[in-house]
């Protein structure tokens, strides 16, 4: 069966999924879904900045293909500004033992100019248990940009996790309207210490989160009187459904 045919069949099956499949002995009818708010947090900056932020995803599918929503948002509580509001809708297929390829669209609708992007990316688990996301974006303005995220789930005990994370964004060109320069745009480094309150479904955490802008992006932010580097203390909860 060709990959295209299989994907089409799977999509059709997902659309007409019913309880009857659950009684089947076959894995073919096995439909899986899940949702996570990886971060739902309050950030308190080193200069008194207050920000509410979230990052999450939800999916439905099977081993052959998954349809996934990924979203994140940041709300500046001091200025009452929705600084970041991003939603991606992607299809995801396995390409190796530990990695999936994904493709889809991304919508950015913060306060300020909106953008639509095409997305292709990789998601998977690298050796030594690093969870990796690497995405490339092409905006409707023709701007090509990229983002790499890495995260590690460090178990201190069976119930206490320390999750360090790293994210870098870069662009091949400038998008002045959205304040994005060319080259390395920003990095974010975080560490969150969580506790399994209810199984793996509710995990409150505290931590630190550091953002640093670079190059043209830094210049544009400075020109607007924004922060170019901020260290936050964070408190939040990780939720899984």
């Amino acid at each position, binding site marked *: 069966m060709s990959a295209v045919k299989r994907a089409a069949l799977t999509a059709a099956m997902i659309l007409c999924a019913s309880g009857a499949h659950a009684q089947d002995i076959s*894995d073919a009818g096995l439909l899986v879904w899940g949702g996570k708010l990886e971060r739902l947090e309050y950030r308190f900056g080193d200069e008194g900045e207050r920000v509410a932020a979230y990052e999450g995803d939800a999916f439905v599918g099977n081993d052959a293909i998954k349809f996934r929503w990924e979203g994140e948002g940041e709300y500046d509580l001091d200025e009452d500004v929705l600084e970041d509001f991003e939603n991606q809708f992607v299809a995801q297929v396995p390409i190796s*033992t530990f990695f999936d390829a994904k493709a889809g669209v991304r919508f950015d609708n913060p306060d300020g100019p909106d953008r639509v992007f095409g997305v292709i990316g990789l998601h998977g688990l690298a*050796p030594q248990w690093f969870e990796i996301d690497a995405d490339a974006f092409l905006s409707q303005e023709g701007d090509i940009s990229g983002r790499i995220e890495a995260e590690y789930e460090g*178990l201190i005990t069976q119930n206490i996790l320390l999750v360090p994370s790293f994210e870098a964004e870069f662009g091949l060109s400038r998008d002045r309207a959205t304040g994005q320069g060319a080259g390395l745009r920003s990095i974010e480094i975080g560490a969150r210490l969580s506790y399994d309150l209810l199984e793996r479904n509710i995990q409150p955490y505290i931590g630190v989160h550091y953002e640093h802008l670079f190059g043209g992006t830094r210049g544009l932010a400075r020109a607007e009187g924004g922060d170019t580097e901020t260290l936050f203390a964070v408190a939040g909860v990780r939720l899984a459904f």
Partner: protein
Amino acid sequence: MRVLSIAAVALTLLGNAAVQAGEYNITVDPVEIDLGHTKKTGVGFNGKSPGETLRFTEGEDVVINVKNNLKVDTSIHWHGFILPTAMDGVPGLSFDGIKPGETFTYRFPVVQSGTYWYHSHSGFQEPDGAYGSIIIDSKKREPFKYDREYVVIIADKHHHTGARIMRNLKTDADYYNRKQRTLLDFFSDVSSKGSDAALANREEWGEMRMMPTDIEDVQGYTPLMNGKTPEQNWTGLFKKGERIRLRFINASAMSFFDIRIPGLKMTVVSADGNNVQPVTVDEFRIAVAETYDVIVHPKEDKAYTIFAESMGRTAAARGTLAPRAGMSAEVPEMRDPPLLTMADMRLSPLHQAAGHEGHGAGHEGHGEGHGGGETHVMADGTVMSGAEHAGHGGHGNHGANKPDPFYAPGSGLKPTAANGGRFLSYADLKAQKPLYPDREATREMEMRLTGNMERYSWSINGVKYGDSDPIRFQYGERVRIKFVNETMMTHPMHLHGMWSILDNGSGKWDPIKHVISVSPGTTVYMETEVDAPGQWAFHCHLAYHAKAGMFRKVIVEGGPKEAALKDKTKG
């Protein structure tokens, strides 16, 4: 179950009548299951989980009316039974399943004896509670004596539904693993082995993205013994000096158990319903879906604990044998959990990709030893000469340090008896009486047990059931199946409708089973006399492995047609 007891009385009255016929009524119902700390809604038979013990007699023609009181389809599979394909109870293979409100009538002759069990083969109803025990009394005198008997059926009941567990595993394969290695474990490794060794070990496992603690995929369950939690303490009464036959059944969805009765030796007389040459042990491991009959002989007027620790030591079932109700004996602490070793990973492609080719030598080396009949390849990859082969199995494996060919050499899973005594090995099992003439297999077939732990997908030869073609056997052939376990999990492989003869080197005395448990990093052989026409399931009996794709349809072609089509009646 009045009808059942009437039928039983009728049977007793009939005595040695030429053909006995018993009629049994079973309803499949939503039930409440008491897990001690919580109660859950599940599925049971005749309003209970586990369902009550069915007692048949060898030679009896049974009629079993199964009424579905659920809102979804159901089915009952008679685990280990040799019966017409239409009576096997696997929806999609043997019949269409039983619709809500409908009754299906199973009719088949009982052609065997021993300890078996029955369970739903639909969705996740078996992990959700739809299981029960079956005793088939032998027509002939059995080659051992006992004064009383008890069924001891063990199940790993979880507070999550089966569907929820599958979803959690598919989303996050280590969702239930609460035995992962932590930073604190790392510090203790550093202090015991030194920082270089501790780091190297972490790197080696991290490179494969696997965990040495991945022994039980699903943890956090309550192990029930005859439906009772460890605190509720199921108790079987005896008078001192009596011989007690305990019919152990592992009806768990996912968990293997190491069973012992401190203070008593256990004489194993039967495995998977078939008598074996008696072997006396201190402890034995029961794979998912296996049955073992043991005889114990308590000579003191005191209570004894039946203690069943899960293989990964995440939970223990407990019951008591006592001269009087209300007594109990000391309950042992669970031993430390085992850790998988690189030996257990030696057949894994990930392990080989990580540059550990050397460990995997056992894999490629196989195969060539076959056919000639002069050499025999053991589970650990060593080749034995004919003479050694013949002698093998006669010695068993006493003591802790004897290698067990059914675990990879250096495996972290190889069990030892808590009291330092004898732990039963597959190598110790020898048929009491061969069921078939010993003959050369007509064909060999390889079944690599494969999977992806991180994605929680399980397969055979790298192909999931949904993508697979049926396996075709010809009626009358003797197929030799070579299981190669390339994964890190232990897979209890179950072929429906025909016996699985485990090749443990005992030749004509090779034991006759219905579940062949294959440890990680090992190659194990079984042979099947293909004598049952029809369509049969062949799968890993771990509920979530089977559902994720470690499953095959076997079609037996040829043979007497009427046997396949007979009794395809529907209620």
